[in-house]
């Protein structure tokens, strides 16, 4: 009897989910149709706005001639190196800041000041220091992605349940054991949130850095296409970047749910 009610409930939830999905996607479809119509009926200068159909054609073209793969590989490399370095540095730094009050007091203001500085404004300096190659972009990605990680992990350390630390100590845990068995698991959901934010910032960093001063990569491709009035190609590039961002965010969200499955509300799969 109880099982039957639950079954019905999940069915209702499923239907509701499909309805929500339909509503959301129909708005996108309507937007695309409207855009296409604006182009087809020459309401706005076609050179400026392109059209979904032309964007698809441009996309096929850059896939066909291999320029997309080439630029994507460069951008991916810049992103992965910068993002990886941000994790490697940001994770321990965030933990240290959260765990040790002395370190927090010493470096907190410095990090806050760094965070408030617009990183991309330093791009001219990075170009002087590291050249026009991929190193200057990696630095921008690193600096864009690192702060969400540091802040989230620092916050994670402050949310540690004192009762659990108390229990741990009562069972004779060392400081390291308390860290491993209490602090680290507490930090995991925060790490994932930090990773998601960092991925968004990092992606933005890659594109802006390439637009700003580069000779290769998706950002450069977009910038070049724009300056030569190839609006189709601009949109195709933007579409690729957006899809990459969505995929990345979705993957990290799933990862977060995996780590969060001990929490009641995330048990719905």
């Amino acid at each position, binding site marked *: 009897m109880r099982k039957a009610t639950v079954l019905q409930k999940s069915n209702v939830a499923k239907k509701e989910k499909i309805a929500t999905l339909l509503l959301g996607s129909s708005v996108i479809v309507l937007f695309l149709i409207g855009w296409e119509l604006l182009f087809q009926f020459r309401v706005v200068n076609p050179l400026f706005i392109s059209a979904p159909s032309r964007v698809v054609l441009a996309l096929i073209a850059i896939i066909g001639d291999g320029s997309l793969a080439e630029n994507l590989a460069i951008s991916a490399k810049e992103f992965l190196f910068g993002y990886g370095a941000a994790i490697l540095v940001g994770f321990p730094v965030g933990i240290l800041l959260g765990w040790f009050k002395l370190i927090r007091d010493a470096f907190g203001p410095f990090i806050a000041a760094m965070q408030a500085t617009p990183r991309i404004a330093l791009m001219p300096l990075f170009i002087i220091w590291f050249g026009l190659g991929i190193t200057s972009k990696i630095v921008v990605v690193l600096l864009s992605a690192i702060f969400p990680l540091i802040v989230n992990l620092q916050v994670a350390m402050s949310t540690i*349940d004192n*009762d*659990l630390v*108390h*229990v*741990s*100590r*009562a*069972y*004779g*845990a060392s400081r390291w*054991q308390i860290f491993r*068995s*209490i602090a680290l*698991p507490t930090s*995991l959901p925060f790490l994932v949130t930090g990773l998601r934010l960092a991925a968004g910032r990092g992606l933005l960093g890659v594109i802006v850095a390439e637009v700003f001063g580069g000779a290769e990569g998706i950002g450069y491709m977009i910038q070049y296409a724009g300056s030569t009035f190839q609006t189709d190609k601009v949109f195709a590039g933007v579409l690729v970047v957006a899809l990459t961002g969505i995929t990345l965010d979705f993957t990290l969200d799933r990862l977060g749910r995996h780590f969060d*499955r*001990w*929490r*009641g509300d995330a048990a719905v799969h």
Partner: protein
Amino acid sequence: MKEAILERSSVASLLPSTLVTPANGKAVSAVKLNGSRPELLKSPDKRPVKLSIKDLVIGYLDKQNGNTMVAVDKVNLDIREGEFVTIVGLSGCGKSTFLNAIAGLVKHQQGQIRVNDRIVSGPGTDRAMVFQKASLLPWRKVGRNITYGLELGGMKQSEARKKASYYVNLVRLNGFENHYPHQLSGGMQQRVNLARALACDPEVLLLDEPFAALDAITRELMQGELLELCEKVGKTVLMVTHQIDEAVLLSDRVIVFAACPAHVLADIAISIPRPRKSHVKDSEEFRGLMNQIWAIIEDNANIGSGI
């Protein structure tokens, strides 16, 4: 209880000048009202002393005026192997601080705590505490919560699981090893808390108001379960509670603490024969003991508040 964690040396020097001992001399004489168990009178208890507390003094720093206050004042207590001893007293009387000191979580300034004649100076696996709040690690399944203490002691997970399985059965949690804590009721969580402590196989089990956070019905049921369980495993137990009925039902001896600073008012032997069932609560003897303990607490409360 962070305030109570002080360096022993620095506070000891402060103590004599600031010792705050309110009118406690009057009530201290009211001890040993009921005498010991009849069978113990015939043959004195020869069981070895498991937990021995001598002249224990615990001070804490009052952050508002900077004075060192005395929370526990020269408490002496011997608990023999297999004995179930409960401390009752007004809230805030320092009994939890006392228990925390025995667990090694709070430093004491004077006196000694010995388990099996070894001096206690910090937390250790010879004592295990059951907390008022279940305080389970929410990301660990029940099974791995129960083995937590063993794993901290350096035992391998598989081995710890084997060792804990007996206690999983004992607290009737079999089949729930793969549940997360949030999927359990309050009573069940408290059983996990209990099993976690028992799995360490401690010399002394410390219970800090173990059922205070539960609803009345669950508390009643859990008291019955703990009674049965303790008679089965024969552990040496020291419990702190507010519930006088809980204390009488479970204990061999009930210690009444006076408040501010805590010291022993009375040490009452509970001679209700074992094995006991929950319905002994209806007996004349049970009610007599409850009234007796209540009278001591009430007297002390009146003295304390100057009524």
